[in-house]
């Protein structure tokens, strides 16, 4: 077993910044009860202005007024952790969020697929940077040791032997022990874990709570209690709250892109696609607006999902300024990648038909793209339908039929036409009260058009135009 610990030292801050259009502007998270508001975390540019976490808000406002203050949202941070777990699940089946501020995943099994560790690590780092999370990565033979070493190191990889030595160097304050226990050790003159490990077990057991010995055992890999493994949920539900009311739909696009790319990450983690998702826009006083995005086939490409969602968003009326945006996807069928021909002649940058079809539907409406098929009926208006044809084609008709059919027949105007063929009697539909009795003729107009007309049975005229032979 070999565990990688991905430590997110600034998770709460990153959870806000990654959705922020200008992440470099000074920003601080605020927490605490109303009478004692303190800064929870500050970003780099806020720190440059002299703000520190733990500072009271009044003090911070005395230092600078340009810093934006945002409420620390514990729930949003927890959601980010779940998203990261879902992302990590792509790389390993053993992913755990048990350890504080971090995600650990078992990587020994994954190395076969993702290549030697340096390449795998580079991939993890690249994707985490794309997702917008600062991180530290450490690999060790057990998860707890990896977590503790991540407090001090970044990019460290140790085997059993090196782990003992590396752990021995760790100061007790940063070893993951409780603060008062660490202080006690320090006062006993035990500054590094090496010295703590050298103590006889029974003295530790006598003087300290049981958890201390358990933690020390876990660090050395002697504790075999398994971690709770992450199981991806069967739905996706993400939410972004805005600090202020958003009035322009263009301002919604940036958060929308984050949501759809998170959805894409989540979907590829569970190797699924999405067939239908709902965008909910929450308002201050009026009920939430819902936009349903339906697809004909499961999809998971983040860009496609964003394009489609944007197409729907641009069309949809939104009742009021938006306070929050939520993306819910419950139907997550298995994703079957479209099979492509290796020797396909089409251009390289070609867009697959499925994507084009969804783009057209997004702008023109759900029923804008349809196929045509034949139906077994003699009545011309019922002999076609706008559904996609079945595999089996109906038997070919022997009679000539026009290429264009008029939705509704219109009366013939002008001089009497030249009859080229006919009459052809069509008499059908008495069983479903759509009774039709007509004599059809093929005629030529003065302008040279070939027209399909009908007249009442046994009468030549007046004619009704029903189609064009084009």
């Amino acid at each position, binding site marked *: 077993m070999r565990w990688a610990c991905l430590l997110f030292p600034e998770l709460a801050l990153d959870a806000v910044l990654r959705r922020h259009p200008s992440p470099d502007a000074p920003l601080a998270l605020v927490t605490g009860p109303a009478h004692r508001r303190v800064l929870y975390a500050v970003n780099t540019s806020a720190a440059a202005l002299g703000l520190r976490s733990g500072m009271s808000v009044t003090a911070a406002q005395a230092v600078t007024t340009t810093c934006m203050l945002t409420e620390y949202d514990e729930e949003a941070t927890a959601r980010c952790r779940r998203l990261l777990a879902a992302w990590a699940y792509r790389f390993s089946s053993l992913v755990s969020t048990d350890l504080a501020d971090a995600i650990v995943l078992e990587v020994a099994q994954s190395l076969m697929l993702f290549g030697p560790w340096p390449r795998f690590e580079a991939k993890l780092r690249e994707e985490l940077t794309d997702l917008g999370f600062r991180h530290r990565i450490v690999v060790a033979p057990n998860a707890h040791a990896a977590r503790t070493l991540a407090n001090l190191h970044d990019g460290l990889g140790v085997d059993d032997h090196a782990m003992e030595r590396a752990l021995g160097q760790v100061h007790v304050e940063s070893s993951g022990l409780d603060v008062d226990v660490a202080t006690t050790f320090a006062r006993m003159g035990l500054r590094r874990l090496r010295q703590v490990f050298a103590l006889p077990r029974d003295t530790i057991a006598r003087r300290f709570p049981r958890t201390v010995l358990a933690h020390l055992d876990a660090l050395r890999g002697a504790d075999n209690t398994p971690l709770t493994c992450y199981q991806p949920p069967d739905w996706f539900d993400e939410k972004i709250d805005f600090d202020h009311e958003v009035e322009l739909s263009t301002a919604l696009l940036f958060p929308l892109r984050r949501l759809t790319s998170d959805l894409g990450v989540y979907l590829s983690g569970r190797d699924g696609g999405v067939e239908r998702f709902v965008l909910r826009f929450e308002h201050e006083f009026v009920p939430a607006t819902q936009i349903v995005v339906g697809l004909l086939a499961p999809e998971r490409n983040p860009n496609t999902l964003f394009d489609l969602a944007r197409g729907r968003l641009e069309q949809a009326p939104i009742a009021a300024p938006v306070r929050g945006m939520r993306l819910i996807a419950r139907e997550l069928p298995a994703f079957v990648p479209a099979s492509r021909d290796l020797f396909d002649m089409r251009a390289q940058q*070609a867009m*697959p038909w499925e994507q084009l079809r969804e783009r057209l539907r997004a702008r*023109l409406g759900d029923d804008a*793209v349809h196929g045509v*098929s034949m139906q077994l009926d003699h009545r011309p208006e019922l002999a076609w339908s706008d559904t996609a*044809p079945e595999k089996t084609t109906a038997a070919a*008709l022997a009679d000539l039929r026009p290429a264009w*059919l008029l939705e509704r027949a219109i009366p013939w105007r002008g001089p009497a036409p030249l009859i080229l063929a006919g009459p052809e009697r069509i008499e059908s539909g008495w069983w479903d009260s759509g009774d039709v009795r007509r004599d059809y003729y093929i005629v030529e107009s003065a302008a040279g058009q070939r027209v399909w007309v009908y007249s009442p049975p046994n009468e030549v005229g007046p004619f009704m135009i029903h189609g064009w032979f084009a």
Partner: protein
Amino acid sequence: MSAALSLDQMLAERRVWRGQPTHAPAPRGLSTGLAALDAALPHSGWPPAALTEVLIPADGVGELSILWPSLAQITRDGGRVVVVAPPYIPYAPSWHLAGITLPGLHVVRAQGRDALWAAEQCLRSGACAAVLCWPAHADDRALRRLQVAAETGQALGFAFRSIKTLSNPSPAALRIAIETRPRQLRVVKCRGAMPPKHAIALSSFSY
């Protein structure tokens, strides 16, 4: 010397007009199915990856029947034909009778500017082998967009327009006008060759 172009290359790309018909091997286009028309066109068929304009005096004068052999060929080969905002219902039995494989035929409902947008998207995507559209009020710029989209997506674009627009300039690679009395078509413009002076007869009753 990247700026220098070889003469052969320029001739092959048909950027030099030589004054008389040449027999330089042009990339063969998809046959129109009309032998006389094929013979008149430089690619021996529809200009590949380009827009073709079909000018008609009215609906129902055989404008689709000149496309049917090639559309049937495309759908038989597994290509996709998209009909964007047709003026009437494409009547399935008749299209089937013409040899078109119906699963390869798709219709897009759209109106006005959306129809132009949809046609451009379809042409540009590279997912469609042929796109039929009816840009009634399209100006020169809109047609040029369609032409560029057809080049990008390597698709055959067919734009049906009124014969009244004959005198307007058009960026289409090929312009064909259909006449009814007698039933014939004229090549008004074809890029890469002189349009033939004589009209090409259409079969007297070809649906």
